[in-house]
C-alpha cells in the first residue's frame, strides 16, 4: 500500500479525530509547508497556523467528522508545493470517513487531495474565449471559493478602456445580478486610488462621510469591507492595475473580523486572478485596438487636412485625449533655447506655461528635463515620487499652484519628438491614475509621437526649404553684394543652426594660388549677430574645396580633425584659423561655372544628413541668383550712369572720368582684383594715355601708369593695336616676363616692380563701333585669379567703359562740331564758308583729308572729266604702295590727291543723273595689303528744300587708329555737319541774294523815275514847252507806265500772288504795239527790229496783267539779250513776237537772239529773287516771277524754250486757257443781263 500510495498523483492524508495527521503519502508530503517534517495538527502542518485552535472553516474533513459522511471541497493554500514554486494553490479535497472495522466507529478521515489550481485557472482562462458571460460565471465560481474563507459577499471590479473608470464585473452573494451597473472612478470612489497604490488588501470602514448608496446604490447599510488590488507586474513594464476585489459580510451576519486569520489569503487569491483578468482584458481589447486603428486613421486624415503645424499638434493632442484618456496633455516645440507650448488640452488652459527655458527650467519642467536626458528618444514616465520632488522645486520657487498640480498627479509621461538626435519638442501626458502607462498606452502614445515628430520634422524641413527658397525673392539685392547678402546669410545660418555662415568666392583656379574671397560672413557667436566682413585671403585647401565641390556637388565634413573627411590644409584653414570643427559647403555656380561656395560652419562635431546637404545646395542656388542679380544691378547702375551722366550740357569730361572711375571700382570689387587702370587712345597720336586708375599706386608707379603707351608697346599697346584681349594667369612665367621685357623697351625697372607686385593680369580692348577706343587693364595678386566668370564680368565692365568712352567722344565731337559750325555760320561772306568747311570737316570727322566742292564746281569737273579723260583727277602714283601717314594728321585741309574709289564714283553718278533726288551718302573703304584701311566718306550738302549746293568728301588713308575706317557715327556726324553747312550756305546765299535783289530792284525802279523827273523838272523850269517838246513829255509818260508796271510786279512777287482778274477781250495787235511803243527809244538805239506775227483778232485775259507780262519779257530782251551782244554800231538786231490761238489756248511767244539760258536754270529763273549765273547781265529776280504769277492766274504757264530754228537765243512762251476765260466772261455777261 505504501508503494501504491507513493505512486499516486493525489496526495493522501489520514487524519484522526483530533485533526492530527496520521499518514501522508509522498505526494501529500510535497504539499506541505517547507520545513514541516513531523506529523501533527493539519492546519499547523499545512498552513503554519500554530496559534489556531480550530480547523479551517471550509475543511471537508471537519464536515466528515460532523456528519460521518464523505465531503469534498476546494481549499486555498499558501503552501508551496516546492521550494521553487512560491505560488498559491487551490486544492480539491475529497474527505472520506474512516471507521473502525470493529465497531464501525468514526476514528478518522482520509483526505484525497489534488492540486486543482491549474484546473480552476484554466477553466477561467478557457471561458475568456467563450465570452464575458461565461467568464463572469467562472469568476463568480472562484469568488464563491474565496467566500468560503468566511465572507458573505464578494465583488470584482475591473478596469475598462477608460483608465479612470472601473466597472463591476462579477459578484458572489448578494447583488450578484446587478453588479454590472456599478461604475467607480477616482472621484466617486475615494478608496480606489488607495487600493491601487496599496501593496496588499486593505480594510475599509468609511467613505469619507458619504453613504455607500451614493457610491453604488447597491451596498446597503455600511459595513466594514476588505479591498484587494488586482495588479499585474511584469519585469519590463510598469505595474498595471487591472481591478479590485472587495469582500464583506452581510450586516446581519457574522463579524468581518471573525475570519481575520484568513484575510491574507485574499492577496493570494488576487495574485492568481489578476493575470487572468489582465489576459481577459487584453483579449477584449481587440475591439478597442480596432477602434484605436480607426481613430488613428481619422487622425491621419485630420492631420493631412490641417494647414499648419499648430493645428496638426492640436489634432494630435485631441486624439491623445480620445485614445489615452489622460487628465492633461500638451505638446511643446523647441525654438532655440525655449520650449514653446503649441497645443494643449483644454484642462491645461489656465495652468500650463507658454514658454519654458531649456537652461533655467530644468528642475521645474518635465519637458526640459527630457531635453537634457542622455537618451531623449525614450519616454520618461514620472511616478509620484519624482512628481513630488518637482512639486517641491516649484513650491520653493513660489509656484504653489503648479506644485499642487504636480502633487495631484499619479504619473506623467514625457515623450520626446525627435529628428535624428535633435529634440524637436515634447509630448506630455499626465494622469491622476497610478500605473496609467501600460504597454498599450505607451504604444499608443508612441504612435502619436511618431506622427507628431514626422509632421514637425517635415514641417520644419518644409519651413527650412521655404525659407531658403524665399531668400532671393524676399531679399531685394542692391548693387553691393556684401550688403545684399548680409540678411540672407544670417537667415541661412539660422536655418542650419550654424555658428557661422560664409559666402566665399574662389580667388584662384590654380592650385598654386589658393585664395578665398569672403563676401559675407554671418557669425552667430558674435554680438550683434550677423556681422559682415569682406576680405581676401590666402586659403590653403581652397583648391581641394574646388575639386570636391566640382566632383561631389557638396562637401560635408563632420569633423575636420578626422583625416577621412578633410586634409591637413582644410583642418588648418578651418579649425586653427576660424575655430570650426565641422562644416558643410555647397558650390555656387554662375552661368554653369563654379564661382564660389556657401559654407555653414559649426564649432562642434556634427553629422550632416542628406536633407541638409540638399537644403544647402538649394540655398547656394538662391545665393547664386542673388549674386547674379547684384552683378546685373551693378551693370545696370553703370548703364544708368552712362545714359544719365553723359549728356551734353553737363561737365561731361568730369562726368565721364567719374563714370570710368566708378566702372573700374565696380569691376575691381566684383572680381576681387588688386588694381586696374583704363587707358584711352588719342586718335591723332595713337598713344594710349591713362584716364583712370585704382590700386596701390606708389609715387614711382604713378609715373609708370601715367606714361603714354605706344602702339605695340607693353601688353596694353599690343591689345590696343590688335584689338584682342590678353589674359595672363601667371605673370611670373618666364615666357610672359620675357615677352614683357621685349615689348617694354625702356621700362626695365617699372616692369620689375610690376612683375613683383602682380601675379595675374588681364587687358581688354575697349571697342565701340568697331573702333579701339582704349584699354581696360586689371590685375590680381594671386596666380590663376581670372576665372571664366571673372573674365566675363570684367568684359561686361569693359564693354560699358567702351560705351562710356564712345559716348564721351561722341559728345566731345558733337560739341566740337557745334563750335566749329557756329564759326562757319558766323562767316561774313559765302566764300569764307566754303573755305572753312574742309578745316571743320577734318577736325570733326578726325580725317586726314577733306575737300568740298560747290555743286557747280563739282559738276564742271565731272563734265570736264567726261569730255577730256586726261583732265581727270590725278591718280596717286603710289597706288600700289601703302600710304604713308601724313605728317599733319588731323591738322587741317590737305588737297585731294588720293586714288578715286568706287563709292565716290557712285555718288558722282547719282549726282550727275539725279541731282535733285540725291540724298544718299557713301561710306566706302579700301583694304590695303597690310590690312590697313583706306576709307572715305562722301556726303552731299543739300539745302532743306533738297537743292544740292555742294559735295563734302573726307578721306582717311590710314583709317582711324586701330586700322578701321569711318564709322556709322562718323557718317551721321558728317550728315549733320553737311546739313548745318547747307543751312549756313543757304542762309548766306539768301542773304546775299536778297541784298543783290534789293539793290537791283531799287536800281530798276529808280531808273524809269529819272526820265519822269527830268520831264517834270524841265517843264517846271520852262525849258520844255508844249507842243514843241511833245515827244520829250511823251517819253516821260511811257516811263511812268513802265514804272507802274515795275511797281506792280514787285508788289505781286513780294506778296506771292497776282492782281485780281478782270478778264476782257483784248486786241493783241494793239497790245503789242503799245508795248513796243514803250521801248521805242531803245529799239532805235539798239537798232532792233521786232517782227510781229499776230493772227487772232482778239484774245481773252486781264489786259493790265497781260500787258505787263509782255512788257516784262520785252524788257528782258532789251536789257539782257540785246545789250550783251558784242557792240557793233552797224549791226542790227531782231526779235520776234507772235500771238496765236492754238486750240483753246492763247499763245504769245517772244524769241530773241541772245546768249540764251542754260537748261539747268530755265526753271529756276521763274523763282522769286533768282539770279542767273551769267556774269554779263543779271536780273533782280522779279520780272519773270511776276510773269509766272500772271500766267497761273490765267490758268496757264510760262516756259523757256530753245529756238525752233536751232539758233542761239531763247523763246519765252506764254500760254493760257483762252476759251475758259472767254466762257467765264460770257456767262458773266448773261448773268448781268438777266438779274435774278
Amino acid at each position: 500500500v505504501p508503494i501504491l500510495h507513493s505512486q499516486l498523483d493525489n496526495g493522501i492524508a489520514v487524519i484522526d479525530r483530533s485533526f492530527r495527521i496520521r499518514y501522508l503519502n509522498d505526494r501529500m508530503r510535497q504539499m506541505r509547508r517547507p520545513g514541516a517534517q513531523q506529523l501533527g495538527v493539519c492546519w499547523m502542518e499545512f498552513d503554519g497556523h500554530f496559534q489556531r485552535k480550530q480547523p479551517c472553516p471550509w475543511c471537508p474533513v471537519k464536515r466528515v467528522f460532523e456528519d460521518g459522511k464523505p465531503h469534498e471541497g476546494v481549499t486555498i493554500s499558501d503552501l508551496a508545493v516546492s521550494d521553487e514554486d512560491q505560488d498559491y494553490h487551490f486544492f480539491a479535497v475529497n474527505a472520506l470517513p474512516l471507521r473502525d472495522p470493529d465497531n464501525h466507529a468514526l476514528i478518522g478521515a482520509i483526505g484525497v487531495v489534488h492540486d486543482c489550481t491549474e484546473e480552476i485557472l484554466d477553466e477561467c482562462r478557457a471561458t475568456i474565449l467563450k465570452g464575458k458571460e461565461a467568464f463572469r460565471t467562472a469568476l463568480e465560481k472562484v469568488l464563491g471559493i474565496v467566500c468560503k474563507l468566511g465572507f458573505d459577499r464578494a465583488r470584482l471590479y475591473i478596469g475598462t478602456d477608460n483608465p479612470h473608470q472601473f466597472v463591476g464585473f462579477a459578484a458572489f452573494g448578494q447583488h450578484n445580478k446587478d453588479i454590472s451597473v456599478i461604475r467607480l472612478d477616482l472621484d466617486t470612489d475615494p478608496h480606489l486610488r488607495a487600493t491601487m497604490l496599496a501593496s496588499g488588501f486593505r480594510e475599509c470602514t468609511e467613505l469619507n462621510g458619504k453613504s455607500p448608496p451614493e457610491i453604488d446604490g447597491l451596498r446597503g447599510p455600511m459595513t466594514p469591507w476588505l479591498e484587494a488590488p488586482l495588479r499585474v507586474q511584469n519585469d519590463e513594464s510598469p505595474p498595471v492595475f487591472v481591478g479590485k476585489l472587495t469582500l464583506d459580510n452581510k450586516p446581519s451576519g457574522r463579524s468581518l473580523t471573525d475570519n481575520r486569520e484568513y484575510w491574507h489569503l485574499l492577496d493570494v487569491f488576487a495574485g492568481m486572478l489578476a493575470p487572468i483578468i489582465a489576459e481577459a482584458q487584453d483579449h477584449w481589447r481587440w475591439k478597442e485596438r480596432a477602434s484605436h486603428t480607426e481613430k488613428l486613421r481619422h487622425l491621419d486624415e485630420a492631420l493631412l487636412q490641417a494647414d499648419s503645424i499648430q493645428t496638426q499638434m492640436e489634432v494630435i493632442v485631441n486624439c491623445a485625449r480620445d485614445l489615452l484618456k489622460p487628465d492633461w496633455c500638451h505638446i511643446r516645440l523647441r525654438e532655440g533655447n525655449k520650449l514653446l507650448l503649441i497645443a494643449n488640452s483644454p484642462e491645461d488652459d489656465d495652468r500650463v506655461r507658454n514658454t519654458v527655458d531649456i537652461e533655467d527650467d530644468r528642475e521645474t519642467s518635465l519637458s526640459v528635463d527630457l531635453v537634457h536626458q542622455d537618451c531623449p528618444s525614450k519616454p520618461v514616465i514620472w511616478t509620484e515620487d519624482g512628481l513630488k520632488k518637482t512639486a517641491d522645486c516649484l513650491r520653493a520657487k513660489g509656484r504653489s499652484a503648479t506644485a499642487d498640480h504636480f502633487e495631484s498627479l499619479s504619473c506623467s509621461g514625457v515623450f520626446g519628438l525627435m529628428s535624428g538626435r535633435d529634440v524637436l519638442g515634447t509630448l506630455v501626458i499626465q494622469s491622476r491614475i497610478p500605473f496609467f502607462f501600460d504597454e498599450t498606452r505607451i504604444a499608443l502614445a508612441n504612435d502619436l509621437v511618431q506622427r507628431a515628430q514626422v509632421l514637425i520634422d517635415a514641417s520644419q524641413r518644409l519651413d527650412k526649404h521655404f525659407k531658403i527658397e524665399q531668400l532671393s525673392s524676399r531679399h531685394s539685392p542692391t548693387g553691393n553684394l556684401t550688403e545684399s547678402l548680409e540678411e540672407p546669410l544670417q537667415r541661412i545660418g539660422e536655418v542650419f543652426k550654424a555658428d557661422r555662415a560664409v559666402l566665399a568666392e574662389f580667388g584662384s583656379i590654380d592650385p598654386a594660388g589658393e585664395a578665398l574671397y569672403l563676401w559675407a560672413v554671418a557669425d552667430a557667436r558674435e554680438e550683434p549677430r550677423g556681422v559682415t566682413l569682406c576680405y581676401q585671403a590666402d586659403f590653403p585647401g581652397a583648391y581641394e574645396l574646388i575639386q570636391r565641390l566640382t566632383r561631389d556637388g557638396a562637401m560635408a565634413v563632420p569633423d575636420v580633425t578626422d583625416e577621412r573627411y578633410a586634409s591637413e590644409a582644410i583642418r588648418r584653414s578651418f579649425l586653427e584659423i576660424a575655430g570650426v570643427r565641422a562644416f558643410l559647403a555647397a558650390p555656387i555656380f554662375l552661368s554653369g561655372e563654379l564661382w564660389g561656395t556657401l559654407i555653414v560652419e559649426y564649432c562642434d562635431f556634427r553629422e550632416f544628413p542628406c536633407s541638409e546637404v540638399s537644403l544647402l545646395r538649394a540655398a547656394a542656388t538662391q545665393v547664386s541668383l542673388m549674386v547674379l542679380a547684384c552683378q546685373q544691378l551693378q551693370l545696370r547702375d553703370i548703364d544708368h550712369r552712362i545714359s544719365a551722366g553723359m549728356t551734353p550740357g553737363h561737365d561731361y569730361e568730369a562726368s565721364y572720368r567719374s563714370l570710368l572711375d566708378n566702372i573700374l571700382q565696380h569691376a575691381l570689387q566684383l572680381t576681387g582684383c588688386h588694381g586696374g587702370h583704363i587707358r584711352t587712345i588719342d586718335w591723332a597720336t595713337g598713344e594710349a594715355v591713362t584716364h583712370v586708375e585704382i590700386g596701390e599706386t606708389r609715387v614711382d608707379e604713378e609715373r609708370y601708369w601715367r606714361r603714354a603707351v605706344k602702339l605695340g608697346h607693353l601688353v596694353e599697346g599690343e591689345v590696343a593695336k590688335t584689338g584682342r584681349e590678353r589674359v595672363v594667369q601667371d605673370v611670373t612665367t618666364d615666357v610672359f616676363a620675357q615677352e614683357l621685357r621685349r615689348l617694354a623697351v625702356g621700362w626695365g625697372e617699372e616692369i620689375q616692380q610690376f612683375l613683383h607686385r602682380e601675379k595675374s593680369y588681364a587687358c581688354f580692348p575697349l571697342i565701340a563701333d568697331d573702333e579701339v577706343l582704349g584699354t581696360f587693364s586689371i590685375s590680381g595678386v594671386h596666380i590663376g585669379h581670372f576665372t571664366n566668370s571673372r573674365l566675363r564680368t570684367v568684359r561686361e565692365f569693359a564693354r560699358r567703359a567702351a560705351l562710356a568712352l564712345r559716348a564721351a567722344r561722341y559728345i566731345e565731337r558733337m560739341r566740337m562740331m557745334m563750335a566749329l559750325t557756329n564759326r562757319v555760320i558766323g562767316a561774313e561772306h559765302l566764300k569764307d564758308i566754303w573755305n572753312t568747311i574742309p578745316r571743320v570737316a577734318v577736325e570733326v570727322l578726325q580725317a586726314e583729308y577733306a575737300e568740298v566742292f560747290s555743286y557747280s564746281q563739282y559738276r564742271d569737273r565731272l563734265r570736264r572729266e567726261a569730255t577730256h579723260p586726261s583732265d581727270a583727277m590725278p591718280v596717286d602714283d603710289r597706288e600700289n604702295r601703302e600710304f604713308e601717314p601724313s605728317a599733319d594728321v588731323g591738322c587741317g585741309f590737305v588737297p585731294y590727291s588720293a586714288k578715286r574709289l568706287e563709292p565716290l564714283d557712285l555718288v558722282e553718278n547719282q549726282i550727275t543723273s539725279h541731282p535733285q533726288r540725291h540724298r544718299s551718302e557713301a561710306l566706302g573703304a579700301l583694304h590695303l595689303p597690310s590690312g590697313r584701311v583706306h576709307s572715305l566718306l562722301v556726303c552731299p550738302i543739300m539745302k532743306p528744300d533738297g537743292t544740292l549746293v555742294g559735295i563734302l568728301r573726307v578721306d582717311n588713308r590710314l583709317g582711324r587708329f586701330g586700322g578701321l575706317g569711318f564709322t556709322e557715327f562718323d557718317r551721321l556726324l558728317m550728315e549733320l555737319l553737311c546739313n548745318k553747312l547747307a543751312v549756313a550756305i543757304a542762309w548766306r546765299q539768301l542773304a546775299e541774294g536778297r541784298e543783290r535783289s534789293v539793290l537791283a530792284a531799287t536800281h530798276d525802279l529808280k531808273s524809269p523815275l529819272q526820265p519822269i523827273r527830268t520831264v517834270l523838272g524841265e517843264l517846271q523850269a520852262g525849258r520844255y514847252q508844249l507842243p514843241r517838246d511833245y515827244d520829250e513829255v511823251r517819253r516821260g509818260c511811257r516811263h511812268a507806265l513802265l514804272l507802274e508796271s515795275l511797281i506792280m510786279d514787285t508788289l505781286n512777287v513780294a506778296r506771292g500772288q497776282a492782281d485780281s482778274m478782270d478778264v476782257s477781250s483784248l486786241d493783241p495787235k494793239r497790245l503789242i504795239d503799245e508795248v513796243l511803243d514803250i521801248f521805242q527809244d531803245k529799239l532805235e538805239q539798239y537798232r532792233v527790229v521786232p517782227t510781229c506775227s499776230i493772227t487772232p483778232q482778239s484774245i481773252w485775259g486781264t489786259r493790265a496783267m497781260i500787258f505787263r507780262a509782255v512788257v516784262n519779257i520785252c524788257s528782258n530782251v532789251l536789257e539782257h539779250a540785246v545789250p550783251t551782244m558784242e557792240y557793233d554800231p552797224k549791226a542790227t538786231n531782231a526779235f520776234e513776237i507772235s500771238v496765236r490761238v492754238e486750240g483753246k489756248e492763247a499763245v504769245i511767244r517772244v524769241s530773241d537772239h541772245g546768249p540764251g539760258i542754260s537748261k539747268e536754270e530755265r526753271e529756276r529763273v521763274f523763282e522769286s529773287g533768282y539770279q542767273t549765273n551769267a556774269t554779263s547781265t543779271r536780273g533782280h529776280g522779279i520780272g519773270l516771277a511776276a510773269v509766272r504769277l500772271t500766267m497761273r492766274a490765267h490758268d496757264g504757264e510760262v516756259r523757256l524754250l530753245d529756238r525752233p530754228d536751232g539758233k542761239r537765243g531763247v523763246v519765252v512762251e506764254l500760254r493760257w486757257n483762252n476759251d475758259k476765260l472767254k466762257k467765264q466772261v460770257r456767262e458773266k455777261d448773261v448773268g448781268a443781263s438777266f438779274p435774278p
Partner: protein
Amino acid sequence: MWRILVAEDDPAIRIPMARFLREQKYRNTRFDVIEVYHPKQAQDALRDSKSDQAFDVIVLDLVMPGNNPEGGRQVLEFMAGKEIYAPVIVATAYGYDGPADRVRQDFSVVKGVLTKSFPLEELWKAIETVLEEERDT
C-alpha cells in the same frame, strides 16, 4: 568848248541830259556833249580823246548796257589802264553803300556820285564843282 562825255544806255535819260548840258555855259563857254550808250562806245570815244581832245567831264552810268552791272566799271578800268584822266561823275540808280561807293574808292577819277533820280540842275551843280576843282588843281 568844254567837252562832256555822257555815257548812259537809257535814251530816256541820256537824250534830255545831253540837251540840257548843251544849253548850259561854263565861264561863258558852251559844252560839246558826246553821247554814248555802250561801254565799248565810251572806250572808243575816250581812246579818240587821248589823241584829239580830252574830255573835261565824264557823266557815267554804272549799269550799262541793259542790266550789265559791270559796264561803268569797265569804262573806269579802261581809263585807268590807258592812263586817261578825266573827272568822272557817276550817275547811278544804286543807292549809297553800294557799287557807287566802291568805284569811288577804287577809282580816283570818280569825283562825284549822283543818285537817280536827280534834277538836271543838280547834275549841273556837280559838273560846275568838278570843273572848279579841276581848275584849282
